[in-house]
């Protein structure tokens, strides 16, 4: 990832003393790579002057007014910067690849540092790594690319991924902080992949502590694309068109298999349903044949288009640089109903050096998107609805809306819905408008040494949500008697004002950078919403609350305002490129808390072993650096402290149509502070095998203390939050990259990354052993976060003798084919005390590897991604507790117990009808499935043509590529994909992920 790096390095070339450096003249030449191939766009500058140019397609440059003896500095992305002394009129410059990326400038928050000066693991991702991945959000494109960063994508068009860095360290919020050109964000879904120049992912405390109370979940710093000084105007088009298609579509029972399950269950009451299907739609009940055999997933899915187009123009002169870009993304949904996402972004930046002591600039992104939402309830309904009734039924068209078949026609009402109708009789959309802007001025008080920078970032975003429910009648349950319209307006006004003073100096072997800063920040949200009934149907232009019933309109509003004030300082010290030290200190004050102030220090040190004298004679390692860091971080993305009991308004009716307002006084209240993370990181980063292999390995120990958890108050179901818990995340991140260019036409790279994580709830509140969160998962001391909790299935009762021998089976009237649960306390009774933790969605291991090959004009890349050690909750199956005549997936049919010895893990058809096995309160481990998967993440083939002659114009380069994104995934769960967008791993109303096949074009004009 650090391969394509802009680096600067000065190399002095000896110049004969006899030639006096007095004459001034032209210097020209070519810039070539290590195989003698010309480099386009290399920057050649006369050191210490403003004389600069870039090379053309043949690598040619020409500079005027060059004094003999002057030094030329030549830089090129991914190459080590060369410095040559002018010896004559023609100077060819040969460059070599910067394998170690030591000179790479890394954005570190309120400044930048060279890669070689870092004391912590900071991973950078460049534009090229994500530009061509077909994802609606830039973070989605990072999946599998960075060790320790776990990304779970959403299939919903425009749905952003869930991102966690180094495990889950909070019960409240695990979202990293995104800093886009100085502005703080919770996600960057509003950005186009092509808006981004670079992302720096701060994984440890030493790197992220500069963001203090916001840093505990890791920090991702995003720099949007900018122009560069002294760069000729560059026009780039980047685009793709593609199709998305669902993969691994779950196979369900067909009508006769479903009917066989019902018959085997011995529950005769459901047979009338089958008879009704035969009577209404045809078939033969006695021969178990049904004419209606609807494949609901097939009815709900389609192949959908995705396309993205970006145009960027950037350049710069000596005093200024600029960049302007636009991009358009359209993603249609694979659910066969109206659901899609489109986004149009404009971006511009300008920087001008007004005086030699003052540089001013601004940049801004305007993003406008419309997301038409799918009704995800249809996915679960498609799982539940058997095929024995059709999508449409002409014979009942005068009763049921739009000619849909009603579940009532086969005699069911509660819990059964026509999934296609559910998907289509839904109309909900969000329109988002977002403006991000940043204005700055930098005062160079002492040139190259002391500067002061003030920067004001402002973000305004608004989401207008409209949700309309039409009037329809599809039976006694699936119906709405009046239309209903809900609208909401959410406005966010946030600003950050940063002031930093930076001093850089070096003397002898000492190099020092010191920075002092302050930051002021405000987040403000205002929302207004309303619902009205009887809004006329038919046109979008009628969707106004004021066109609905005047009586009964409900309105609400809400808002918050938080402020923060911070002081921070950072010292970087480098001695002889051998010993590095970085100290950051941040004092944060937040209006969210009753005790507002917190102090967040960190320290990092590194030792470059290969720069020691005793390492001079070895050639095993070309570079070896040992790093260690410790720091304290905060997480303030938790609820604000109440600080006092609040009084809730309450209403009660007294008499006809008369209600009085009253209150219920709260008896308790939260007294909260931020969560704190203490993190230790020890890492090694090395280059070996003759500069071909680079590697990073880091071990970390992150302990969240004061984690906010809301246990139920004793006796009640109301909760009160407190800083009570501890969470441990310990792990190893490993990254290896092999890079070799064998001939001028052939090179290849192999990369691998692996993240291993141990996640554990260390303690909850005193005396509290477990806390249920979200009504779904449990936090249990000694277990992973977000555990499933229930009875563990240890087998299936195989015969009557086994049933008779087990008092549990006798007491509960069990039969062969039912689950045998583990009797944890051995008291021969299965009750609440026999429940246990059954797994969690948090994976132990995530890994990825990739291979890239370039041969002549062709490039080929393939990457794989996988994860292991997590479990998901198959809620689709578990929902059977709500209606036992729901459909079954094919595996439930094929693997069922149907006689002694047929299965010791899957229940019989009859057992699937009993609450002992499928009851809502049992949470049997049968529904917990391995979330391990391995995926061909991306395969792409590209062909690049250079110097295309178009009449008199030479097009510098064009690349055409074909790619397949996520075409194949291997896993065992009974699911579309174990990558489920529900953070707790509940696979229920999850929009399936799709494989995307794209044709891409990139043109440099």
């Amino acid at each position, binding site marked *: 990832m650090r391969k394509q790096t802009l680096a600067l390095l000065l190399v002095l070339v000896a110049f004969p003393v006899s030639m006096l450096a007095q004459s001034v003249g032209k210097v020209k030449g070519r810039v070539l790579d290590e195989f003698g191939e010309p480099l386009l766009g290399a920057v050649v500058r006369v050191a210490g002057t403003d004389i600069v140019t870039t090379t053309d397609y043949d690598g040619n440059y020409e500079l005027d007014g060059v004094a003999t003896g002057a030094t030329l500095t030549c830089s090129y992305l991914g190459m080590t910067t060369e410095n040559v002394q002018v010896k004559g009129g023609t100077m060819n410059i040969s460059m070599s690849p910067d394998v170690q990326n030591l000179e790479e400038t890394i954005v570190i928050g309120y400044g930048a540092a060279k890669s070689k000066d870092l004391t912590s693991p900071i991973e950078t991702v460049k534009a090229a790594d994500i530009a061509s991945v077909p994802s609606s959000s830039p973070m989605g494109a990072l999946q599998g690319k960075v060790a320790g960063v776990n990304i779970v994508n959403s299939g919903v068009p425009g749905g952003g991924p869930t991102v966690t860095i180094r495990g889950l360290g909070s019960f409240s919020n695990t979202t990293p902080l995104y800093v886009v050109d100085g502005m703080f964000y919770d996600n960057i879904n509003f950005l186009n992949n092509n808006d981004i120049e670079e992302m720096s992912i701060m994984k440890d405390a030493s790197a992220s502590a500069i963001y203090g109370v916001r840093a505990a979940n890791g920090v991702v710093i995003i720099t949007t694309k900018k122009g560069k000084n002294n760069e000729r105007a560059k026009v780039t088009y980047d685009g793709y068109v593609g199709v998305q298609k669902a993969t691994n579509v779950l196979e369900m029972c067909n009508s006769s298999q479903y009917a066989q399950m019902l018959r085997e269950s011995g529950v005769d009451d459901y047979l009338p349903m089958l008879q009704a299907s035969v009577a209404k739609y045809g078939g033969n009940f006695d021969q178990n044949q049904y004419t209606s055999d609807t494949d609901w997933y097939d009815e709900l899915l389609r192949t959908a288009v995705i396309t993205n187009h970006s145009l960027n123009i950037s350049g710069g002169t000596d005093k200024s640089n600029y960049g302007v870009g636009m991009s358009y993304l359209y993603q249609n949904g694979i659910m066969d109903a109206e659901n899609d996402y489109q986004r149009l972004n404009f971006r511009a930046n300008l920087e001008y050096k007004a005086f030699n*002591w003052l540089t001013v600039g601004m940049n801004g992104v305007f993003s406008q998107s419309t997301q038409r939402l799918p009704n995800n309830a249809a996915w679960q309904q498609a799982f539940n609805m058997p095929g024995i009734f059709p999508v449409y039924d002409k014979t009942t068209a005068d009763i049921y809306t739009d000619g849909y078949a009603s579940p009532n026609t086969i005699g069911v009402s509660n819990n059964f819905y026509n999934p296609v109708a559910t998907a289509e009789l839904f109309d909900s959309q969000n329109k988002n408008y977002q403006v991000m802007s940043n204005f700055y001025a930098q005062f160079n008080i002492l040139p190259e040494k002391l500067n002061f920078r003030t920067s004001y970032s402002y973000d305004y975003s608004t989401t207008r949500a409209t949700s309309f429910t039409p009037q329809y009648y599809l039976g*006694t349950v699936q119906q709405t008697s009046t239309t209903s319209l809900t609208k909401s307006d959410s406005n966010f006004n946030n600003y950050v004002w940063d002031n930093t003073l930076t001093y850089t100096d070096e003397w002898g072997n000492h190099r020092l950078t010191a920075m002092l800063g302050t930051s002021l920040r405000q987040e403000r949200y205002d929302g207004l919403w309303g619902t009205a009934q009887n809004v006329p149907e038919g046109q979008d232009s009628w969707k106004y609350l004021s066109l609905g019933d005047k009586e009964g309109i409900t309105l609400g509003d809400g808002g918050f305002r938080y402020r923060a004030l911070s*002081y921070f300082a950072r010292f970087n010290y480098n001695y002889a490129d051998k010993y590095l030290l970085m100290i950051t200190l941040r004092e944060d004050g937040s*209006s969210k808390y009753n005790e507002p102030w917190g102090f967040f220090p960190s320290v990092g040190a590194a030792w470059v072993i290969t720069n020691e004298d005793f390492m001079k004679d070895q050639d095993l390692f070309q570079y070896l650096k040992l790093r260690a860091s410790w720091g304290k971080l905060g997480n303030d993305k938790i609820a604000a402290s109440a600080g006092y009991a609040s009084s809730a*308004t309450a209403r*009660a009716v007294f008499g006809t149509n008369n209600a009085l307002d009253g209150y219920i006084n709260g008896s308790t209240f939260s007294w909260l502070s931020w969560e704190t993370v203490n993190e230790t990181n020890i890492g090694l980063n090395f280059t070996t095998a003759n500069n071909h292999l680079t590697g990073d390995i880091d071990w970390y120990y992150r302990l969240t203390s004061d984690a906010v958890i809301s246990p139920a108050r004793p006796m009640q179901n*109301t909760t009160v939050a407190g800083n009570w818990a501890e969470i441990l995340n310990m792990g190893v991140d490993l990254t290896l990259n092999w890079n070799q260019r064998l001939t001028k036409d052939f090179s290849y790279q192999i990369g691998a990354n692996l993240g291993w994580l141990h996640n554990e709830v260390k303690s909850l509140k005193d005396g509290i052993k477990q806390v249920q969160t979200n009504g779904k998962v449990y936090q249990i001391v000694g277990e992973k976060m977000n555990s499933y909790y229930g009875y563990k299935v240890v087998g299936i009762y195989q015969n009557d003798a086994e049933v008779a021998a087990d008092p549990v089976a006798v007491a509960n009237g069990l039969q062969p084919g039912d689950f045998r649960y583990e009797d944890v306390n051995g008291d021969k009774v299965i009750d*609440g005390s026999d429940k246990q933790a059954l797994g969690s969605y948090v994976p132990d291991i995530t890994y990825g590897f990739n291979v890239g090959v370039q041969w002549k004009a062709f490039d080929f890349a393939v990457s794989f991604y996988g994860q292991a050690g997590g479990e998901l909750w198959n809620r689709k199956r578990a929902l059977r507790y709500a209606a036992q005549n729901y459909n079954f997936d094919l595996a439930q049919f094929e693997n069922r117990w149907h006689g002694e010895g047929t299965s010791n893990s899957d229940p019989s058809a009859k057992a699937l009808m009993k609450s002992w096995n499928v009851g*809502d309160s049992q949470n049997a481990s049968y529904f917990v499935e391995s979330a391990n998967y391995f995926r061909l993440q991306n395969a792409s083939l590209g062909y690049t043509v250079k110097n295309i002659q178009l009449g008199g114009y030479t097009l510098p380069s064009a690349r055409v590529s074909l790619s397949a994104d996520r075409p194949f995934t291997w896993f065992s769960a009974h699911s579309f994909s174990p990558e489920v967008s529900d953070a707790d791993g509940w696979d229920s109303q999850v929009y399936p992920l799709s494989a995307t096949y794209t044709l891409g074009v990139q043109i440099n004009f």
Partner: protein
Amino acid sequence: MKTIKTLLYVLPAALLGLASCTDYIDIDAENTRDVDAIDYTDASTMHEAATGAYATLRSQGIHWANAMLWMGRDDDMSSGRADDQGDALKFGYPGGYTNPNAFWAVGNMWSTMYNIIIDCNSNIDALDQYAENLSTGSSDYQSYLQYKGEVRVVRAWAYYQLVTSFGPCVIYRDNNQSSFRRSTVEKVYDYIITEMQEAAAGMEAKRPNQMSRPGAFTKFTAEALAARTALLAGNFALVESLTDDIINGGGFELYPDYYNLFKIPGKLCNENLMEVQCSDFGTASGDYVGVDQWFNFRGAGLTLYDEAGNWSNGIGGWTFMRYSPKFLELMENRGETIRKETSLLVAGTTTREGWTINGDLDRTAEIAQIYDGKGYVPFDQMTAGNSEWGRNNNVRLIRYAEVLLMNAEAKVRQGKNGDAPFNLVRARAQMPSVNGVNIDQILEERRVELCAEWGLRYTDLCRTGQAASVLGAYGWSESSRYIPVPSNQITNTPELGEDPE
């Protein structure tokens, strides 16, 4: 140039220093109201604390899942469905009495009742703070006693539901109490009775529908709740004196139309002693103060066919809470007419409004398709434009008919004649009067008159010692009389597992 240089040094210092103003972060939280902001010297807001208690009773107490465990424990009614909430059947007929403590509804009942108790404790504290500013004997002080009494009635009702369901339970006297040791059943009975007698002393002697806030609880509500509890405690003299007081002093009367008593026309009628009130304010949509799914939960599918026999309209509910065929048989054998029609919606029959009661798929023959008619509101009584089952109806908690039957029982138990109150109930139900009524007749009358009302049949069977003989066939034993403390409560509060004291 020199000024610029000076500026270059001064500006950073000024801007870095500017931020040192910590007032910047000293701002108030938006959109919340502080408890301390309530002005307890202003007696005109005192009623708001009482109103809060009614709100918590409605929103916490009248929860659909509680109905399964309150009314599904006897042999006349079950939760009704095996395909959904199947575990609810394990608390009574016909699924046995294994009472699994991990069933979510068990934890839900426990916590909703204690939510009520804790909310009431808070609001009683608030009322006491008003009282500190009032002079004893003033009219505001009288109001204070009335309001406080209402809140105590709500709280006592929650204890009554707890003690009849869980048996021993924690008396949580104030919200700072650190002990979670359960009290014995007898102590809880005593607590409820004492509470209600104390409250009644300060409350108005009116019918709820005579109150300036129509339906507010009165002295008689407190007495009825005390009588209910005294019946469990076997203190029949107390039952008699309390119910006599209600009968003689309250001006209550039975609503003549038993069918409509449970429907919209019967809201806040003279028979009402305790009702949870709902209102849709006359509109089909929008503002609604209601009881969530309480009615919808027990709603059956109903279809209206036109004269040609074609589908014309339909409404539906969740089809829980169903009667046993045996109970239908009892109604028929007794020759019940209006009470049978009102209470039982038998699948395949038609309501007097002409709607056909749909059958639904179910699991076993034991669970008949006989739905709860006391939750039924006919379509023509619904606010036009709405068809949600039971919307806008009130939930009846205590009726005068129950007071009369308690009075009759208390008298007969003490060797007196209970015919008068007993026959009032019979007459309204168009049943012939009985001379020299005995205990068994009273219990059966209660069973028929008060079916599907708060599990009174189950507590009757338990308190009269008949449970073993009647329910034993379904697995009942003395040890399964009460539902165990929910497992999620015991896990984090082990003290609840200790023996009650």
